[in-house]
């Protein structure tokens, strides 16, 4: 598909959304049998699974820390998740994304409670349409909670960007490819602080401040959906009592 003439027509985006609207979001907790915790997220056309194993004995043993658990994250894209088949295995992009996702979760996980252990977070992108790292973070946060890993807060994540000179929330693939700027953010929704921030493109300082505000509003909506997903799995319904 070539570059569309315009990405925003009469204040609406190509998929009919306003600038401050998220794509349809679906979150489900506890979707995998063997994992200690898991979650499935659909954000627009993105389909992402996250699984948590641990805290468990860490191998290889030389990585064990006497005073803390170590958190490991692996973000991976399935070969069929993108238009052109992606060569399986880690590439430079996924290594970097795995690193920043881990750093986004470090402030919330009580790793000190589990010396010599490892907590593994696996994120598998099954279908990609821009914003896979943010969808992956949203899934991983729910999966960690589903695994019963003690946390200070959830982590909620969304991308903002600039498209046709407009600041918009939750970019689609076309908006990412043909827009000016992409800025994924992850936030601790209760403390309102930022644990992941990346940006590439072009922002004036004023645009940047507006973009951060918009991202934080988006994260709040995602936080509500994450809580709902956990409640849907764990709250007892009156008729079942």
């Amino acid at each position, binding site marked *: 598909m070539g570059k569309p003439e315009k990405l925003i027509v009469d204040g609406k985006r190509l998929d009919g959304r306003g600038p401050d609207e998220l794509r349809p979001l679906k979150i489900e907790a506890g979707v995998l049998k063997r994992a200690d915790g898991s979650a499935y997220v659909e954000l627009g056309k993105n389909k992402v699974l996250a699984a948590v194993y641990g805290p468990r004995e860490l191998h290889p043993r030389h990585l064990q820390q006497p005073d803390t658990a170590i958190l490991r994250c692996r973000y991976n894209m399935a070969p069929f998740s993108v238009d052109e088949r992606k060569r399986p295995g880690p590439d430079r992009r996924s*290594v*970097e994304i795995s*690193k920043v996702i881990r750093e986004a979760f470090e402030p919330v996980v009580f790793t000190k409670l589990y010396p010599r252990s490892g907590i593994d977070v696996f994120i598998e992108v099954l279908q990609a349409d821009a914003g896979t790292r943010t969808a992956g973070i949203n899934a991983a946060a729910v999966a960690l909670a589903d695994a019963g890993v003690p946390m200070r807060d959830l982590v909620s994540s969304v991308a903002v960007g600039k498209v046709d000179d407009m600041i918009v929330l939750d970019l689609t693939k076309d908006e990412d490819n043909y827009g000016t700027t992409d800025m994924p953010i992850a936030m601790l929704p209760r403390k309102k602080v*930022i*644990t992941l*921030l990346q*940006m*590439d493109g072009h922002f*004036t300082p004023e645009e940047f401040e507006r973009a951060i505000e918009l991202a934080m509003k988006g994260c709040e909506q995602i936080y509500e959906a994450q809580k709902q997903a956990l409640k849907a799995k764990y709250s007892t319904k009156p008729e079942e009592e």
Partner: protein
Amino acid sequence: MKMYELVSTVKRDYIVDLARQGKRTDARALDQYREVSVETGLIENAQGSALVKIGNTQVLAGVKIQRGEPFPDTPSSGVLMVNAELRPIASPTFELGPPDENSIELARVVDRGIRESEAIDLDKLGITPDEEVWMVYIDLHALDYDGNLIDAASLAAVAALWNVKKPQVEGWTLDEFPVVKKPVAVTVAKIDGKLMVDPSLDEQNVMDARLTITTTEDDNICAMQKGGIGYLTVEEIKAAYELARIKAAELRKHLG
């Protein structure tokens, strides 16, 4: 390979304590870089090169220009490739082996600053559409690691690009190398709620988080990367931008 080294509690407390008072172990101000130097053109076999020192940290960048195949979606544009090597010569904690997440992150942060600012006019680097274009390889070689590799590597990369004279490569027809902007990365570290530029290795070992902001001559932002295991508030991010804007202008003077 570890970018962070084990620090004794005594040292950690000392650094954090000083930070609280707005001081640093090497008596710098919070908004002060270590001594910065940029030397260009040391490597004759590279089309452009630069050695950047920030305090004891040293990074050598080399630019090689070669023919290659374009990407299918940009058939007549040149290709930019940035690679970083954290070789064991630079630190007792760097190990042999394929690039790990730290060298990959370093290369990609430098890459984004150059790519997104459009510092190189890649559209001018086509040769035969769909078949052949000029490839611009920037290789970053850390020689001595005493903190803040990102700023040193980024400055070295841009200095090396501006050092490219009319490339002496067969088939080169342009009058000059199309480098047009000077993006500059400034890394701000946060220790106990205090922001400081150009973290030393000791400071990097105890910091909560860092934020690298790359700006262009017009003070606009072209790339950002948060790192480290802590968090940043929105106010801290805005304050970091102010620091980055002012410090980038200072660092840019070293680019001539």
